[in-house]
Protein backbone atom coordinates (compact mmCIF):
# COMPACT_ATOMS: atom_id res chain seq x y z
CA UNK A 1 0.00 0.00 0.00
CA UNK A 2 2.83 2.36 0.83
CA UNK A 3 4.61 1.29 -2.31
CA UNK A 4 1.61 2.16 -4.45
CA UNK A 5 1.00 5.46 -2.73
CA UNK A 6 4.68 6.23 -3.14
CA UNK A 7 4.65 5.41 -6.85
CA UNK A 8 1.75 7.82 -7.33
CA UNK A 9 3.38 10.52 -5.28
CA UNK A 10 6.64 10.07 -7.14
CA UNK A 11 4.98 11.03 -10.42
CA UNK A 12 3.83 14.30 -8.92
CA UNK A 13 6.69 15.15 -6.59
CA UNK A 14 9.72 13.32 -7.95
CA UNK A 15 9.14 14.02 -11.61
CA UNK A 16 6.99 17.12 -11.83
CA UNK A 17 8.02 18.80 -8.59
CA UNK A 18 4.44 19.34 -7.45
CA UNK A 19 4.00 19.46 -3.70
CA UNK A 20 0.80 17.53 -3.18
CA UNK A 21 0.25 17.29 0.56
CA UNK A 22 -3.19 15.81 0.13
CA UNK A 23 -2.19 12.56 -1.48
CA UNK A 24 -4.17 10.64 1.12
CA UNK A 25 -7.27 12.24 -0.42
CA UNK A 26 -6.77 10.12 -3.54
CA UNK A 27 -6.57 7.02 -1.38
CA UNK A 28 -9.72 8.02 0.40
CA UNK A 29 -11.79 8.58 -2.72
CA UNK A 30 -10.37 5.35 -4.13
CA UNK A 31 -11.32 3.30 -1.11
CA UNK A 32 -14.66 4.94 -0.54
CA UNK A 33 -15.51 5.05 -4.24
CA UNK A 34 -15.15 1.29 -4.30
CA UNK A 35 -16.96 0.63 -1.03
CA UNK A 36 -19.91 2.89 -1.76
CA UNK A 37 -20.41 1.51 -5.25
CA UNK A 38 -20.52 -2.02 -3.91
CA UNK A 39 -22.84 -0.95 -1.11
CA UNK A 40 -25.22 0.59 -3.62
CA UNK A 41 -25.37 -2.72 -5.45
CA UNK A 42 -22.61 -2.35 -8.01
CA UNK A 43 -19.98 -4.99 -8.56
CA UNK A 44 -16.55 -4.68 -6.98
CA UNK A 45 -14.94 -4.15 -10.40
CA UNK A 46 -17.26 -1.29 -11.18
CA UNK A 47 -16.40 0.07 -7.74
CA UNK A 48 -12.68 0.00 -8.48
CA UNK A 49 -13.31 1.85 -11.72
CA UNK A 50 -15.43 4.42 -9.87
CA UNK A 51 -12.75 4.84 -7.23
CA UNK A 52 -10.02 5.46 -9.79
CA UNK A 53 -12.14 7.84 -11.81
CA UNK A 54 -12.99 9.76 -8.66
CA UNK A 55 -9.28 10.09 -7.88
CA UNK A 56 -8.54 11.40 -11.37
CA UNK A 57 -11.33 13.93 -10.96
CA UNK A 58 -9.94 14.84 -7.55
CA UNK A 59 -6.53 15.46 -9.12
CA UNK A 60 -8.10 17.80 -11.65
CA UNK A 61 -10.06 19.56 -8.91
CA UNK A 62 -6.84 20.04 -6.93
CA UNK A 63 -5.09 21.36 -9.97
CA UNK A 64 -7.49 23.57 -11.88
CA UNK A 65 -7.74 26.43 -9.40
CA UNK A 66 -4.24 26.24 -7.95
CA UNK A 67 -1.76 25.25 -10.62
CA UNK A 68 -1.60 28.75 -12.01
CA UNK A 69 -0.50 29.97 -8.59
CA UNK A 70 2.81 29.33 -6.91
CA UNK A 71 3.50 25.78 -5.88
CA UNK A 72 3.13 26.33 -2.13
CA UNK A 73 -0.54 27.11 -2.68
CA UNK A 74 -1.02 23.68 -4.13
CA UNK A 75 0.41 22.22 -0.93
CA UNK A 76 -1.99 24.24 1.22
CA UNK A 77 -5.04 23.51 -0.91
CA UNK A 78 -4.35 19.81 -1.17
CA UNK A 79 -3.77 19.23 2.53
CA UNK A 80 -6.97 21.13 3.29
CA UNK A 81 -8.92 19.28 0.60
CA UNK A 82 -7.84 15.89 1.92
CA UNK A 83 -8.93 16.86 5.44
CA UNK A 84 -12.26 18.17 4.12
CA UNK A 85 -12.83 14.85 2.39
CA UNK A 86 -12.01 12.91 5.53
CA UNK A 87 -14.27 15.02 7.71
CA UNK A 88 -17.04 14.82 5.14
CA UNK A 89 -16.94 11.05 5.13
CA UNK A 90 -17.07 11.14 8.92
CA UNK A 91 -19.95 13.59 9.06
CA UNK A 92 -23.42 12.48 10.04
CA UNK A 93 -24.92 14.25 7.06
CA UNK A 94 -23.34 11.70 4.73
CA UNK A 95 -23.94 8.79 7.05
CA UNK A 96 -26.45 7.04 4.76
CA UNK A 97 -23.71 6.87 2.14
CA UNK A 98 -20.51 6.49 4.12
CA UNK A 99 -21.82 5.16 7.44
CA UNK A 100 -19.90 7.88 9.23
CA UNK A 101 -17.23 6.99 11.73
CA UNK A 102 -18.03 3.29 11.57
CA UNK A 103 -17.04 3.02 7.94
CA UNK A 104 -18.11 0.38 5.48
CA UNK A 105 -17.24 -3.28 5.90
CA UNK A 106 -17.46 -6.56 4.02
CA UNK A 107 -17.69 -5.35 0.46
CA UNK A 108 -14.84 -7.23 -1.17
CA UNK A 109 -16.11 -10.80 -1.08
CA UNK A 110 -15.96 -10.92 -4.85
CA UNK A 111 -12.22 -10.42 -4.64
CA UNK A 112 -11.71 -13.31 -2.26
CA UNK A 113 -14.02 -15.59 -4.23
CA UNK A 114 -11.43 -15.40 -6.99
CA UNK A 115 -8.72 -16.62 -4.64
CA UNK A 116 -7.05 -19.56 -6.39
CA UNK A 117 -5.17 -20.68 -3.30
CA UNK A 118 -6.78 -23.51 -1.36
CA UNK A 119 -7.53 -22.87 2.30
CA UNK A 120 -4.73 -23.37 4.69
CA UNK A 121 -1.64 -21.77 5.96
CA UNK A 122 1.28 -20.68 3.80
CA UNK A 123 4.56 -19.32 4.85
CA UNK A 124 8.28 -19.04 4.70
CA UNK A 125 10.17 -20.09 7.79
CA UNK A 126 8.19 -18.76 10.77
CA UNK A 127 6.14 -16.16 8.95
CA UNK A 128 2.78 -17.54 7.83
CA UNK A 129 -0.26 -16.24 6.05
CA UNK A 130 -3.70 -17.69 5.47
CA UNK A 131 -4.89 -18.20 1.91
CA UNK A 132 -6.74 -14.88 1.70
CA UNK A 133 -3.82 -12.84 2.90
CA UNK A 134 -1.52 -14.60 0.48
CA UNK A 135 -3.93 -13.84 -2.35
CA UNK A 136 -4.04 -10.18 -1.34
CA UNK A 137 -0.27 -10.00 -1.15
CA UNK A 138 0.17 -11.54 -4.57
CA UNK A 139 -2.38 -9.27 -6.20
CA UNK A 140 -1.01 -6.26 -4.33
CA UNK A 141 2.49 -6.78 -5.63
CA UNK A 142 1.16 -7.42 -9.10
CA UNK A 143 -0.60 -4.09 -9.00
CA UNK A 144 2.59 -2.45 -7.74
CA UNK A 145 4.56 -4.04 -10.57
CA UNK A 146 1.99 -2.89 -13.10
CA UNK A 147 1.94 0.66 -11.90
CA UNK A 148 5.72 0.77 -11.75
CA UNK A 149 5.82 -0.45 -15.33
CA UNK A 150 3.28 2.18 -16.31
CA UNK A 151 5.28 4.98 -14.70
CA UNK A 152 8.48 3.65 -16.22
CA UNK A 153 6.94 3.57 -19.69
CA UNK A 154 5.68 7.10 -19.32
CA UNK A 155 8.78 8.65 -17.84
CA UNK A 156 11.35 7.16 -20.18
CA UNK A 157 9.39 8.67 -23.07
CA UNK A 158 9.57 12.31 -24.12
CA UNK A 159 6.54 12.85 -21.88
CA UNK A 160 8.66 12.22 -18.80
CA UNK A 161 11.32 14.55 -20.11
CA UNK A 162 8.79 17.37 -20.22
CA UNK A 163 7.73 16.59 -16.64
CA UNK A 164 11.32 16.79 -15.45
CA UNK A 165 11.81 20.03 -17.35
CA UNK A 166 8.80 21.47 -15.57
CA UNK A 167 10.30 20.39 -12.24
CA UNK A 168 13.52 22.19 -13.10
CA UNK A 169 12.05 25.37 -14.50
CA UNK A 170 8.54 25.72 -15.79
CA UNK A 171 9.20 29.01 -17.55
CA UNK A 172 11.93 27.39 -19.59
CA UNK A 173 9.55 24.58 -20.55
CA UNK A 174 6.96 27.16 -21.50
CA UNK A 175 9.42 29.11 -23.62
CA UNK A 176 10.06 25.91 -25.57
CA UNK A 177 6.41 25.46 -26.43
CA UNK A 178 5.32 23.04 -23.71
CA UNK A 179 1.86 23.36 -22.22
CA UNK A 180 3.02 23.33 -18.61
CA UNK A 181 -0.46 23.59 -17.14
CA UNK A 182 -1.70 20.63 -19.13
CA UNK A 183 1.25 18.49 -18.09
CA UNK A 184 0.79 19.32 -14.42
CA UNK A 185 -2.85 18.33 -14.63
CA UNK A 186 -1.91 15.05 -16.29
CA UNK A 187 0.67 14.44 -13.60
CA UNK A 188 -1.86 15.08 -10.83
CA UNK A 189 -4.44 12.87 -12.51
CA UNK A 190 -2.05 9.96 -13.06
CA UNK A 191 -0.48 10.30 -9.62
CA UNK A 192 -3.96 10.43 -8.12
CA UNK A 193 -5.12 7.35 -10.01
CA UNK A 194 -2.16 5.32 -8.80
CA UNK A 195 -2.71 6.65 -5.28
CA UNK A 196 -6.34 5.59 -5.45
CA UNK A 197 -5.17 2.06 -6.27
CA UNK A 198 -3.40 2.12 -2.92
CA UNK A 199 -6.63 3.16 -1.22
CA UNK A 200 -8.64 0.56 -3.10
CA UNK A 201 -6.17 -2.15 -2.30
CA UNK A 202 -6.16 -1.23 1.36
CA UNK A 203 -9.96 -1.22 1.42
CA UNK A 204 -10.27 -4.54 -0.36
CA UNK A 205 -7.60 -6.24 1.67
CA UNK A 206 -9.02 -5.23 5.03
CA UNK A 207 -12.60 -5.44 3.77
CA UNK A 208 -13.29 -2.09 5.40
CA UNK A 209 -12.99 1.62 4.92
CA UNK A 210 -12.96 4.05 7.77
CA UNK A 211 -12.44 7.79 7.59
CA UNK A 212 -9.75 7.73 10.22
CA UNK A 213 -7.53 5.40 8.23
CA UNK A 214 -6.96 8.38 5.95
CA UNK A 215 -5.18 10.77 8.28
CA UNK A 216 -2.91 13.48 6.86
CA UNK A 217 -0.02 11.67 8.55
CA UNK A 218 -0.28 9.07 5.83
CA UNK A 219 0.67 11.59 3.16
CA UNK A 220 3.82 12.44 5.06
CA UNK A 221 4.73 8.80 5.53
CA UNK A 222 4.33 8.43 1.78
CA UNK A 223 6.73 11.34 1.32
CA UNK A 224 9.16 9.61 3.63
CA UNK A 225 8.90 6.51 1.47
CA UNK A 226 9.54 8.48 -1.74
CA UNK A 227 12.45 10.38 -0.28
CA UNK A 228 13.96 7.24 1.24
CA UNK A 229 13.97 5.51 -2.12
CA UNK A 230 15.06 8.56 -4.06
CA UNK A 231 12.57 10.91 -5.72
CA UNK A 232 12.39 10.79 -9.50
CA UNK A 233 13.43 7.14 -9.65
CA UNK A 234 10.97 4.57 -10.91
CA UNK A 235 11.77 1.89 -8.35
CA UNK A 236 12.57 4.39 -5.59
CA UNK A 237 9.23 4.34 -3.81
CA UNK A 238 8.96 0.55 -3.92
CA UNK A 239 12.34 0.05 -2.31
CA UNK A 240 11.65 2.98 -0.01
CA UNK A 241 8.46 1.38 1.26
CA UNK A 242 10.12 -1.97 1.85
CA UNK A 243 12.92 -0.30 3.74
CA UNK A 244 10.46 1.81 5.68
CA UNK A 245 8.50 -1.20 6.91
CA UNK A 246 11.66 -3.11 7.51
CA UNK A 247 12.93 -0.33 9.75
CA UNK A 248 9.63 -0.19 11.59
CA UNK A 249 9.21 -3.89 12.26
CA UNK A 250 12.88 -4.65 12.66
CA UNK A 251 13.41 -2.04 15.36
CA UNK A 252 10.23 -3.19 17.06
CA UNK A 253 11.30 -6.83 17.07
CA UNK A 254 14.78 -6.03 18.36
CA UNK A 255 13.49 -3.75 21.10
CA UNK A 256 10.84 -6.21 22.25
CA UNK A 257 13.31 -9.02 22.44
CA UNK A 258 15.80 -6.85 24.28
CA UNK A 259 13.18 -5.72 26.77
CA UNK A 260 11.84 -9.20 27.48
CA UNK A 261 15.34 -10.63 27.75
CA UNK A 262 16.19 -7.95 30.27
CA UNK A 263 18.93 -6.23 28.26
CA UNK A 264 17.09 -2.97 28.64
CA UNK A 265 16.06 -2.24 32.22
CA UNK A 266 12.41 -1.68 32.84
CA UNK A 267 12.81 1.89 34.09
CA UNK A 268 14.36 2.87 30.73
CA UNK A 269 11.88 1.22 28.44
CA UNK A 270 9.01 -1.14 28.99
CA UNK A 271 7.07 -3.26 26.54
CA UNK A 272 4.29 -0.73 26.11
CA UNK A 273 6.67 2.04 25.15
CA UNK A 274 8.37 0.07 22.41
CA UNK A 275 5.77 1.01 19.80
CA UNK A 276 6.42 4.68 20.36
CA UNK A 277 10.17 4.37 20.53
CA UNK A 278 10.44 2.59 17.20
CA UNK A 279 8.97 5.68 15.50
CA UNK A 280 11.68 7.74 17.12
CA UNK A 281 14.27 5.34 15.77
CA UNK A 282 12.73 5.42 12.32
CA UNK A 283 12.85 9.20 12.44
CA UNK A 284 16.47 9.02 13.47
CA UNK A 285 17.16 6.65 10.61
CA UNK A 286 15.55 9.08 8.17
CA UNK A 287 17.66 11.91 9.51
CA UNK A 288 20.83 9.90 9.17
CA UNK A 289 19.92 8.98 5.64
CA UNK A 290 19.24 12.58 4.74
CA UNK A 291 22.59 13.61 6.16
CA UNK A 292 24.73 10.92 4.63
CA UNK A 293 22.76 10.00 1.55
CA UNK A 294 20.48 12.92 0.72
CA UNK A 295 19.69 11.55 -2.74
CA UNK A 296 17.85 8.55 -1.31
CA UNK A 297 18.85 4.97 -1.96
CA UNK A 298 18.48 5.15 -5.70
CA UNK A 299 19.20 8.77 -6.49
CA UNK A 300 22.47 9.85 -7.97
CA UNK A 301 24.77 11.86 -5.78
CA UNK A 302 25.72 14.16 -8.61
CA UNK A 303 22.13 15.08 -9.26
CA UNK A 304 21.49 16.29 -5.71
CA UNK A 305 24.64 18.34 -5.58
CA UNK A 306 23.43 20.51 -8.40
CA UNK A 307 21.60 23.47 -7.04
CA UNK A 308 18.24 23.33 -8.72
CA UNK A 309 18.00 27.07 -9.30
Amino acid sequence: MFALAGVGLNVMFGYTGLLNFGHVGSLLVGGYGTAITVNLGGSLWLGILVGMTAAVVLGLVYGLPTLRLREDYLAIVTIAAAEILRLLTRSSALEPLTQGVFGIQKFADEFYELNPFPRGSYGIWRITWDANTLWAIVVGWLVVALSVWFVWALTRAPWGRVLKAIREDEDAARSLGKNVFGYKLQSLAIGGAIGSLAGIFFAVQTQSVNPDSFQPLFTFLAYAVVILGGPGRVLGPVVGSILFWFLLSFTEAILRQAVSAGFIPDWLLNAQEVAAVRWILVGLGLMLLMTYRPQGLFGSREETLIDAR
Partner: protein
Amino acid sequence: MPAELLADTQPVPGVPKPDPVLVADGVNRHFGGLVAVDIDHLEVQRGAITGLIGPNGAGKTTLFNLLTGFDTPNGGTWAFSGRALAGLPAYRVARLGMVRTFQLTKALMRLTLMENMKLGATGQSGESAIGALLPWRWRQQEKEIEARAEVLLERFTLADMRDEFAGTLSGGQRKLLELARALMVEPALIMLDEPMAGVNPALTESLLVHIKGLRDEGMSVVFIEHDMDVIMDISDWIVVMAEGKLIAEGRPADVAANPAVIDAYLGRHHGEAATPGLGTGAVGERPDEDGDG
Protein backbone atom coordinates in the same frame (compact mmCIF):
# COMPACT_ATOMS: atom_id res chain seq x y z
CA MET B 1 21.58 42.26 -47.01
CA PRO B 2 19.43 43.30 -44.03
CA ALA B 3 21.38 46.51 -43.72
CA GLU B 4 20.48 47.44 -47.29
CA LEU B 5 16.86 46.54 -46.68
CA LEU B 6 16.73 49.07 -43.90
CA ALA B 7 18.76 51.66 -45.80
CA ASP B 8 15.74 53.72 -46.74
CA THR B 9 14.07 53.48 -43.35
CA GLN B 10 13.99 56.75 -41.45
CA PRO B 11 15.48 56.65 -37.94
CA VAL B 12 12.35 57.81 -36.09
CA PRO B 13 10.53 55.93 -33.32
CA GLY B 14 7.73 53.71 -34.64
CA VAL B 15 8.84 53.88 -38.26
CA PRO B 16 7.38 51.19 -40.56
CA LYS B 17 9.84 48.57 -41.86
CA PRO B 18 9.87 47.12 -45.36
CA ASP B 19 9.12 43.57 -44.17
CA PRO B 20 8.19 43.45 -40.49
CA VAL B 21 8.15 40.08 -38.72
CA LEU B 22 6.74 41.54 -35.51
CA VAL B 23 4.38 44.50 -35.22
CA ALA B 24 3.20 45.89 -31.88
CA ASP B 25 0.52 48.54 -31.41
CA GLY B 26 -0.35 50.33 -28.21
CA VAL B 27 1.12 47.61 -25.98
CA ASN B 28 1.21 48.88 -22.43
CA ARG B 29 1.69 47.43 -18.97
CA HIS B 30 1.20 49.12 -15.61
CA PHE B 31 2.35 47.89 -12.24
CA GLY B 32 0.16 49.90 -9.93
CA GLY B 33 0.92 53.52 -10.75
CA LEU B 34 4.13 52.68 -12.56
CA VAL B 35 3.97 52.53 -16.33
CA ALA B 36 6.46 49.81 -17.15
CA VAL B 37 5.85 49.63 -20.88
CA ASP B 38 3.91 51.93 -23.17
CA ILE B 39 4.69 51.36 -26.83
CA ASP B 40 2.69 53.20 -29.49
CA HIS B 41 3.98 51.39 -32.51
CA LEU B 42 6.96 49.16 -33.09
CA GLU B 43 7.98 47.08 -36.06
CA VAL B 44 10.81 44.57 -36.16
CA GLN B 45 12.42 43.83 -39.50
CA ARG B 46 12.48 40.23 -40.70
CA GLY B 47 15.89 38.68 -41.20
CA ALA B 48 17.72 41.41 -39.30
CA ILE B 49 19.37 41.72 -35.91
CA THR B 50 17.53 44.28 -33.84
CA GLY B 51 19.19 45.50 -30.66
CA LEU B 52 16.94 46.67 -27.85
CA ILE B 53 18.70 48.98 -25.45
CA GLY B 54 17.80 51.35 -22.68
CA PRO B 55 18.80 52.23 -19.14
CA ASN B 56 17.96 49.93 -16.25
CA GLY B 57 14.24 49.83 -15.62
CA ALA B 58 13.38 50.99 -19.13
CA GLY B 59 10.96 48.09 -19.56
CA LYS B 60 12.93 46.01 -22.04
CA THR B 61 12.47 42.69 -20.28
CA THR B 62 8.85 43.51 -19.52
CA LEU B 63 8.29 44.15 -23.21
CA PHE B 64 9.84 40.75 -23.97
CA ASN B 65 7.56 39.13 -21.41
CA LEU B 66 4.51 40.79 -22.91
CA LEU B 67 5.31 39.94 -26.50
CA THR B 68 6.07 36.29 -25.73
CA GLY B 69 3.00 35.69 -23.59
CA PHE B 70 4.82 35.44 -20.26
CA ASP B 71 3.00 38.50 -19.01
CA THR B 72 -0.33 40.02 -20.00
CA PRO B 73 -0.46 43.67 -21.05
CA ASN B 74 -3.13 46.07 -19.88
CA GLY B 75 -3.87 46.77 -23.51
CA GLY B 76 -2.62 46.66 -27.06
CA THR B 77 -2.27 44.30 -29.96
CA TRP B 78 0.73 42.69 -31.56
CA ALA B 79 1.25 40.29 -34.37
CA PHE B 80 3.96 37.86 -35.37
CA SER B 81 4.21 37.18 -39.11
CA GLY B 82 0.72 38.60 -39.47
CA ARG B 83 -0.81 36.43 -36.75
CA ALA B 84 -2.30 38.29 -33.78
CA LEU B 85 -0.79 37.06 -30.52
CA ALA B 86 -2.74 38.92 -27.84
CA GLY B 87 -4.14 36.50 -25.28
CA LEU B 88 -2.13 33.54 -26.53
CA PRO B 89 -0.34 31.56 -23.79
CA ALA B 90 3.45 31.51 -23.89
CA TYR B 91 3.73 27.93 -25.11
CA ARG B 92 1.56 28.65 -28.14
CA VAL B 93 3.65 31.70 -28.99
CA ALA B 94 6.75 29.52 -28.86
CA ARG B 95 5.18 26.90 -31.11
CA LEU B 96 4.43 29.57 -33.69
CA GLY B 97 8.17 30.11 -33.99
CA MET B 98 8.83 33.05 -31.71
CA VAL B 99 11.19 31.81 -29.02
CA ARG B 100 12.84 33.69 -26.21
CA THR B 101 15.67 33.16 -23.78
CA PHE B 102 15.95 34.55 -20.29
CA GLN B 103 18.10 37.14 -18.62
CA LEU B 104 18.83 34.74 -15.77
CA THR B 105 19.72 31.66 -17.73
CA LYS B 106 17.29 28.82 -17.35
CA ALA B 107 19.29 25.73 -18.04
CA LEU B 108 17.43 22.67 -16.80
CA MET B 109 20.06 21.77 -14.24
CA ARG B 110 19.21 18.18 -13.44
CA LEU B 111 18.73 17.17 -17.03
CA THR B 112 21.64 16.31 -19.29
CA LEU B 113 22.61 18.61 -22.13
CA MET B 114 21.12 16.17 -24.60
CA GLU B 115 17.84 16.05 -22.70
CA ASN B 116 17.82 19.84 -22.59
CA MET B 117 18.24 19.94 -26.32
CA LYS B 118 15.68 17.28 -27.13
CA LEU B 119 13.13 19.09 -25.05
CA GLY B 120 13.32 21.99 -27.47
CA ALA B 121 11.94 20.05 -30.42
CA THR B 122 8.26 20.69 -31.03
CA GLY B 123 5.54 18.34 -32.22
CA GLN B 124 6.92 15.22 -30.54
CA SER B 125 4.34 12.44 -30.55
CA GLY B 126 5.92 10.91 -27.43
CA GLU B 127 5.10 14.02 -25.45
CA SER B 128 1.45 13.15 -25.05
CA ALA B 129 0.67 10.75 -22.23
CA ILE B 130 -0.91 8.24 -24.58
CA GLY B 131 1.77 8.64 -27.24
CA ALA B 132 4.40 8.01 -24.59
CA LEU B 133 3.06 4.48 -24.10
CA LEU B 134 3.56 3.66 -27.76
CA PRO B 135 7.35 3.73 -28.05
CA TRP B 136 7.37 2.39 -31.60
CA ARG B 137 5.71 5.62 -32.64
CA TRP B 138 8.24 8.02 -31.11
CA ARG B 139 11.51 6.08 -31.42
CA GLN B 140 12.17 7.18 -34.99
CA GLN B 141 11.34 10.79 -34.23
CA GLU B 142 13.55 10.68 -31.17
CA LYS B 143 16.48 9.60 -33.35
CA GLU B 144 15.92 12.46 -35.77
CA ILE B 145 15.72 14.96 -32.94
CA GLU B 146 18.87 13.56 -31.43
CA ALA B 147 20.71 13.95 -34.71
CA ARG B 148 19.57 17.55 -34.96
CA ALA B 149 20.61 18.21 -31.36
CA GLU B 150 23.99 16.64 -32.05
CA VAL B 151 24.64 19.08 -34.88
CA LEU B 152 23.67 22.07 -32.77
CA LEU B 153 25.74 20.94 -29.78
CA GLU B 154 28.69 20.53 -32.12
CA ARG B 155 28.16 24.01 -33.48
CA PHE B 156 28.06 25.51 -30.00
CA THR B 157 31.11 23.51 -28.88
CA LEU B 158 29.14 21.62 -26.25
CA ALA B 159 29.18 18.21 -27.89
CA ASP B 160 31.78 16.77 -25.50
CA MET B 161 29.47 17.33 -22.57
CA ARG B 162 26.29 15.94 -24.08
CA ASP B 163 25.70 13.49 -21.24
CA GLU B 164 26.66 15.81 -18.39
CA PHE B 165 24.03 17.49 -16.27
CA ALA B 166 23.42 21.06 -17.40
CA GLY B 167 24.01 22.12 -13.79
CA THR B 168 27.71 21.36 -14.18
CA LEU B 169 28.15 23.92 -16.96
CA SER B 170 29.74 27.32 -16.43
CA GLY B 171 27.57 30.42 -16.71
CA GLY B 172 28.74 31.14 -20.21
CA GLN B 173 28.19 27.59 -21.38
CA ARG B 174 24.67 27.73 -20.01
CA LYS B 175 24.02 30.76 -22.19
CA LEU B 176 25.25 28.77 -25.17
CA LEU B 177 23.08 25.82 -24.19
CA GLU B 178 20.02 28.01 -23.82
CA LEU B 179 20.59 29.50 -27.25
CA ALA B 180 21.14 26.09 -28.81
CA ARG B 181 18.03 24.74 -27.08
CA ALA B 182 15.95 27.63 -28.36
CA LEU B 183 17.15 26.78 -31.87
CA MET B 184 15.75 23.26 -31.47
CA VAL B 185 12.31 24.86 -31.71
CA GLU B 186 13.30 26.04 -35.19
CA PRO B 187 12.16 29.58 -34.58
CA ALA B 188 11.63 32.28 -37.18
CA LEU B 189 12.26 34.94 -34.58
CA ILE B 190 14.50 34.50 -31.59
CA MET B 191 14.43 36.96 -28.71
CA LEU B 192 17.52 36.99 -26.52
CA ASP B 193 17.44 38.66 -23.16
CA GLU B 194 21.00 39.75 -22.38
CA PRO B 195 22.76 36.84 -24.02
CA MET B 196 26.17 38.26 -23.13
CA ALA B 197 25.62 39.12 -19.49
CA GLY B 198 28.25 37.53 -17.31
CA VAL B 199 30.01 35.85 -20.21
CA ASN B 200 33.77 36.15 -20.58
CA PRO B 201 35.09 38.14 -23.57
CA ALA B 202 36.24 35.11 -25.55
CA LEU B 203 32.84 33.48 -25.26
CA THR B 204 31.12 36.78 -26.07
CA GLU B 205 33.03 36.81 -29.32
CA SER B 206 31.84 33.33 -30.24
CA LEU B 207 28.26 34.15 -29.21
CA LEU B 208 28.41 37.15 -31.54
CA VAL B 209 29.52 34.96 -34.40
CA HIS B 210 26.68 32.55 -33.63
CA ILE B 211 24.09 35.32 -33.59
CA LYS B 212 25.31 36.74 -36.87
CA GLY B 213 25.20 33.23 -38.25
CA LEU B 214 21.54 32.94 -37.29
CA ARG B 215 20.74 36.11 -39.20
CA ASP B 216 22.64 34.89 -42.22
CA GLU B 217 20.48 31.77 -42.15
CA GLY B 218 17.45 34.02 -42.44
CA MET B 219 16.36 34.10 -38.82
CA SER B 220 15.22 37.33 -37.20
CA VAL B 221 16.91 38.22 -33.93
CA VAL B 222 15.88 40.68 -31.25
CA PHE B 223 18.20 41.05 -28.33
CA ILE B 224 18.57 43.09 -25.18
CA GLU B 225 22.10 44.04 -24.31
CA HIS B 226 23.99 46.54 -22.22
CA ASP B 227 27.41 46.24 -23.77
CA MET B 228 27.62 49.09 -26.28
CA ASP B 229 30.50 47.56 -28.21
CA VAL B 230 28.41 44.47 -28.82
CA ILE B 231 25.32 46.45 -29.74
CA MET B 232 27.11 48.70 -32.18
CA ASP B 233 28.96 45.78 -33.69
CA ILE B 234 26.19 43.37 -34.56
CA SER B 235 22.91 45.27 -34.69
CA ASP B 236 21.40 46.09 -38.05
CA TRP B 237 18.90 48.27 -36.28
CA ILE B 238 18.69 49.59 -32.74
CA VAL B 239 15.58 50.38 -30.74
CA VAL B 240 16.00 52.49 -27.61
CA MET B 241 13.57 52.43 -24.71
CA ALA B 242 13.48 54.61 -21.63
CA GLU B 243 10.84 54.68 -18.91
CA GLY B 244 8.68 52.27 -20.86
CA LYS B 245 8.57 54.33 -24.03
CA LEU B 246 10.23 54.04 -27.38
CA ILE B 247 12.50 57.05 -27.56
CA ALA B 248 14.63 56.35 -30.58
CA GLU B 249 15.25 53.94 -33.43
CA GLY B 250 17.79 53.73 -36.16
CA ARG B 251 20.99 52.29 -37.51
CA PRO B 252 23.81 52.15 -34.95
CA ALA B 253 25.30 55.41 -36.20
CA ASP B 254 21.95 57.22 -36.01
CA VAL B 255 21.32 56.09 -32.47
CA ALA B 256 24.80 56.94 -31.27
CA ALA B 257 24.32 60.49 -32.47
CA ASN B 258 20.78 60.87 -31.17
CA PRO B 259 20.63 63.45 -28.36
CA ALA B 260 17.49 61.85 -26.87
CA VAL B 261 19.39 58.61 -26.34
CA ILE B 262 22.36 60.30 -24.72
CA ASP B 263 19.90 62.16 -22.52
CA ALA B 264 18.19 58.97 -21.46
CA TYR B 265 21.45 57.33 -20.52
CA LEU B 266 23.31 60.20 -18.92
CA GLY B 267 20.80 62.93 -18.40
CA ARG B 268 17.93 64.06 -16.32
CA HIS B 269 16.48 61.21 -14.28
CA HIS B 270 19.16 58.60 -14.64
CA GLY B 271 22.28 59.63 -12.88
CA GLU B 272 23.96 56.23 -13.03
CA ALA B 273 27.63 57.04 -13.37
CA ALA B 274 28.49 53.60 -14.62
CA THR B 275 26.20 53.74 -17.63
CA PRO B 276 28.30 53.61 -20.76
CA GLY B 277 28.53 56.65 -22.97
CA LEU B 278 27.10 56.10 -26.39
CA GLY B 279 28.99 56.27 -29.61
CA THR B 280 32.35 56.55 -27.98
CA GLY B 281 32.78 52.82 -28.02
CA ALA B 282 33.51 52.92 -24.32
CA VAL B 283 32.50 49.82 -22.46
CA GLY B 284 30.69 50.31 -19.22
CA GLU B 285 30.11 47.64 -16.68
CA ARG B 286 27.83 44.87 -17.74
CA PRO B 287 25.24 44.33 -15.05
CA ASP B 288 24.35 40.68 -14.72
CA GLU B 289 20.99 41.53 -13.56
CA ASP B 290 19.15 44.73 -14.12
CA GLY B 291 15.93 45.77 -12.55
CA ASP B 292 13.75 45.57 -15.64
CA GLY B 293 10.15 44.75 -14.90
